[in-house]
């Protein structure tokens, strides 16, 4: 390994020798981040530092630390984030190892099902969970709750939140770990084994260090996501937690700069968490880890071992699909018939008919597919560019690009969306009739929606691409360059093909989360003729009396479509879901 490090060091050039193409790339990326992240954030966050009249102040930030409730909210958020990340790791690591290294009956099918949490539309997921965890809901019926039922949501708030979030977020870590594991050259582990190392030593001393890029990529995403998660605490009525405090204060009737100052503190805290993760897991990455030079060996499990592996997969899948199952059952339940019973007392297809007849529902799905596809294309292009700068260039301050690309995770979606809206309105006020229609969110939100989705979902692509590049030896690219290939040819023929698995992993995450994006969709898509699916689901779910059922019907359809989108994209590339990450 040290030999590689030395080779890397001698290849490194002084920063003034940074190539023109890297400078150009940096300029394009800075423009992207500047317009789509910094500008809207500044637009909103400045409120937290400005007194009425315009003078700058730190008074509001100070106030946050004076308020014991806000401080406790921050500690709770950190507590939840750390617990969720640890639990996610506990779930994902064995699953990743089993799915990449071993073969047992049902592995392929269950591996596909493990990604199910990725296809759960928001609201619908909340509807499903509220139903299952209801006082007289199916869980209560299952355990026999007595005449007054069991208040699951009220009784198990912290633990409930951690479990629900971990079961929602583990695929992010799982995908990254699978990609990292698949990238390890088995020769390294075989060499260790030949030298007499035990399995445990090999895992601790060889495997674990080698999968650090994936571990870092995945756990950072989970950590920051759960730190800023809003939906789950709201389901559990947990108010003393920062994201909920920001949300509630921002939406309060009186205008108040405090929540905006709180957003700044969240940003700083997220950056600290990110840096802490980087120090703990992310130091010393280099192209030292090689791509597999020999095929990975897959061990076939038999007997009790196979059964145990199957049971582990099955249990996680079972827990993960509870909200989905409940949504499916709800969509077929007769209105009001799922009350104090394990299953609905009557079935009906009427809700699907309602959805079909709805003016908003179907066009919204088609639009969402278009928006999300475009956004994914933008995110993959920008993400790849950012990853190349971060890993392969000597450009000064390249850590900045790393931090910038993670920024969307730390900013509440609501803040970013209002930022876009405020910019568009401000531009219109100053440009008047000369304002191009494509920039006018209230008239034609498509461009801003697509770019907003791309910016919000960029972290997945950047993390995956960076992990992919870090695990791909630079020697191959240098060899191609030595043979006279241009930078673009190297990118097209060597780099991208080598990390395509990571790019697909990031792209798929970006696509499915863009399909299910909430804040941008609610704030930016105000005209019903531009509604994406999340907005349509929200509208339907708010229908009094039977909204839950109708929204579930649309949710089921969206889940099937999203599953098939992922499977189709996957098969189009000629790889199966399970082996996709073994590049």
């Amino acid at each position: 390994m040290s030999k590689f490090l030395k080779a890397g060091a001698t290849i490194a050039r002084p920063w003034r020798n940074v190539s023109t193409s890297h400078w150009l790339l940096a300029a394009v990326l800075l423009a992207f981040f500047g317009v789509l992240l910094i500008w809207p954030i500044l637009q909103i966050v400045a409120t937290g530092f400005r007194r009425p009249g315009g003078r700058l102040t730190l008074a509001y930030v100070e106030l946050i630390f004076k308020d014991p409730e806000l401080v406790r909210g921050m500690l709770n958020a950190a507590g939840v984030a750390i617990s969720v990340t640890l639990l996610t790791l506990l779930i994902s690591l064995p699953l990743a190892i089993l799915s990449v290294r071993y073969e047992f009956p049902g592995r392929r099918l269950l591996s596909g099902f493990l990604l199910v949490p990725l296809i759960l539309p928001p609201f619908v997921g909340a509807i499903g969970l509220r139903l299952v965890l209801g006082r007289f809901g199916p869980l209560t019926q299952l355990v026999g709750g007595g005449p007054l039922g069991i208040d699951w949501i009220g009784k198990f708030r912290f633990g409930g939140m951690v479990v629900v979030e971990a079961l929602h977020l583990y695929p992010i870590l799982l995908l990254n770990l699978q990609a990292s594991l698949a990238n390890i050259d088995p020769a390294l582990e075989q060499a260790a084994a030949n030298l007499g190392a035990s399995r445990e030593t090999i895992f601790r001393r060889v495997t674990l260090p080698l999968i650090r890029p994936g571990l870092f990529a995945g756990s950072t995403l989970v950590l920051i996501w759960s730190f800023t998660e809003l939906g789950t605490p709201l389901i559990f009525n947990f108010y003393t937690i920062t994201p909920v405090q920001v949300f509630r204060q921002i939406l309060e009737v009186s205008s108040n700069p405090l929540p905006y100052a709180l957003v700044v503190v969240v940003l700083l805290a997220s950056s600290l968490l990110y840096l802490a993760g980087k120090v703990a897991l992310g130091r010393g990455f280099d192209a030292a880890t090689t791509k597999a030079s020999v095929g990975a060996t897959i061990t076939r499990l038999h007997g009790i071992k196979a059964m145990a592996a199957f049971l582990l997969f099955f249990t996680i899948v079972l827990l993960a699909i509870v909200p989905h199952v409940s949504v499916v059952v709800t969509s077929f339940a007769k209105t009001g018939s799922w009350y104090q019973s394990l299953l609905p007392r009557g079935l009906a297809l009427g809700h699907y008919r309602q959805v079909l007849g709805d003016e908003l529902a179907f066009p919204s799905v088609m639009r969402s597919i278009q928006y999300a596809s475009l956004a994914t294309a933008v995110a993959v292009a920008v993400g790849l560019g950012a990853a190349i700068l971060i890993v392969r260039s000597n450009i000064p301050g390249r850590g900045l690009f790393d931090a910038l690309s993670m920024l969307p995770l730390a900013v509440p979606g609501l803040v970013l969306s209002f930022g876009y809206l405020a910019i568009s309105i401000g531009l219109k006020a100053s440009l008047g009739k000369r304002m191009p229609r494509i920039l006018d969110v209230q008239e034609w939100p498509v461009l801003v929606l697509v770019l907003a989705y791309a910016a919000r979902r960029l972290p997945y692509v950047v993390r995956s691409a960076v992990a992919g590049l870090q695990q791909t030896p630079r020697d191959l690219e240098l060899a191609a360059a030595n043979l006279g290939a241009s930078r673009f040819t190297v990118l097209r023929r060597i780099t991208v093909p080598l990390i395509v698995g990571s790019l697909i992993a990031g792209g798929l995450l970006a696509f499915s989360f863009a399909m299910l994006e909430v804040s941008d969709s609610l704030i930016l898509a105000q005209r019903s003729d531009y509604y994406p699916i999340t907005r349509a689901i929200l509208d339907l779910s708010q229908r009094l009396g039977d909204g839950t059922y109708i929204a579930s019907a649309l949710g089921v359809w969206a889940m099937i479509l999203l599953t098939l989108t992922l499977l189709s994209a996957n098969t189009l590339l000629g790889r199966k879901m399970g082996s996709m990450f073994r590049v």
Partner: protein
Amino acid sequence: MQRYVYILLFALVLFAPLLARMAIVSPQAREATTANAARLVVITPNNQDIRREFAIGFDRWHVAHYGQSVVLDYRTPGGTSDIERQLKSTYDAYRDAAGTLPPEIPVEIDVVWGGGDYSFNQVLKPAGILQTAPISPNLLAAAFPEPKLAGVRLYDATSGPDGKPTPLWLGVCLSSFGIMYNPDVFERLGLPAPQVWGDLTNERLDGFISLADPGHSGSAAVTYMMVLQRAMADAEAEFFLRHPDLRNAPAAQRAKDPAYAQAIGNGWKHGMGQLLLIAGNARYFTDSSEVVPTDVARGDAAAGMAIDFYARVTEQVVGSRRAQFVLPVGATAITPDPVAVLLGVRGERLRLAGHFIEFLLSPEGQRLWILKVGVPGGPVDRSLWRMPIRRGVYADRTGWEPTTDPFEVAHGFNERGEWMVGFGDTRMIWGCAWIDSGDALSAAYSAVLSVSDDTRRREMINGLMDLPITWDEVKHIGVERARQPRERMDEWDAELRIQFARRFRDHYRAVKCLAENR
């Protein structure tokens, strides 16, 4: 092969519903809107049912009266506060350094519709972004024979130099908040059906009450205010029994009487205590008002404070075994839900906006709120179950869904203007007492409820209700705030909130220690 199967399935799932849709939706319904239809842009928090029915109704009415089809182009950025924020930022972009708006503002949105009178009175009107509604004085007089319903204004009080009304907003229907409850769960709890707000303070309802957040919902806040005002009115009635001489004295003179002020202050405090117990029983304070009826109907909550039409539609869908609605007689606020034209709307768009308001106040527009589905002039898909604001239309209720007459239910009791002083600050206090220090409240309430001796528990509950705050203090907040320099105002407010929350937390902790005999 597998790849083609998935792609085929994908296409099938994508397109099958579109084909099915063509089969089940009638061609008339799919008929495109008339090409030469006029367009009116309306920003609204109203739900899809209301939006759809009024789009159809207005178009029909406009064709019949003005010979032209109109498309209502709705903008729905979310709830009332989202709309307020968007409108404020839209207009703020045009203000000069002094905050003045130019005479010409190229706004896209013509009309703002729905969200409660509080939003129109306290946010949109003071922001200076509404213009006088373009309707004839005759229509105003016909629609509103009385400008108030038991003390609450039904349209904006602005008037011109000649004293004639030039309202910036007009109520188009009425909302009331009441108790929605699940009879089945009440039976399981062994409790009689609730009739008055006080019934929600029962300790056996701990964890069974569903409430809306007073900081987010203006109409919920008005309802909580009615609990206070009911307690104040009761205290006043009791005071008059002891001092009959003051009953007919002018309000100004009464207010100066220290004994009277003391009695009203005690009533306020008792009301705050009642609200605290209801908050103690609450499962949560929701931002989304649809959650309350849904949770009650599902049995997750036994009762909640809900807006009338949410409760009635839910009752209709799930049946009266699981959802019923009660308006506490003489203790509910009945408030208008307004419409207004935005500043900067001119010419043809202004004329259309005027037509829209004319339709909303017309007998046809008014009946659309409450007629049954299928009745001529009624809704196409679902009844809206809202109360018309024109008193006259209540005379003939043929084809109506069952409803109460709000003009009778009010029983002369509605918001009392003089007791609304400090309303904004009272909302802040509720936020501090119920939400900011919510964990401490829950802990104290649980500790109190686990005291087994009935007399001691009652004492503890009374102790908990005795919040360390007085009405005088709340009224004084406004005076103090006015003394602050403008640029320190937000900071001062935030500090005040922290102080109050701390004060309430200390109170809850003290009660908890007492209850636990520590």
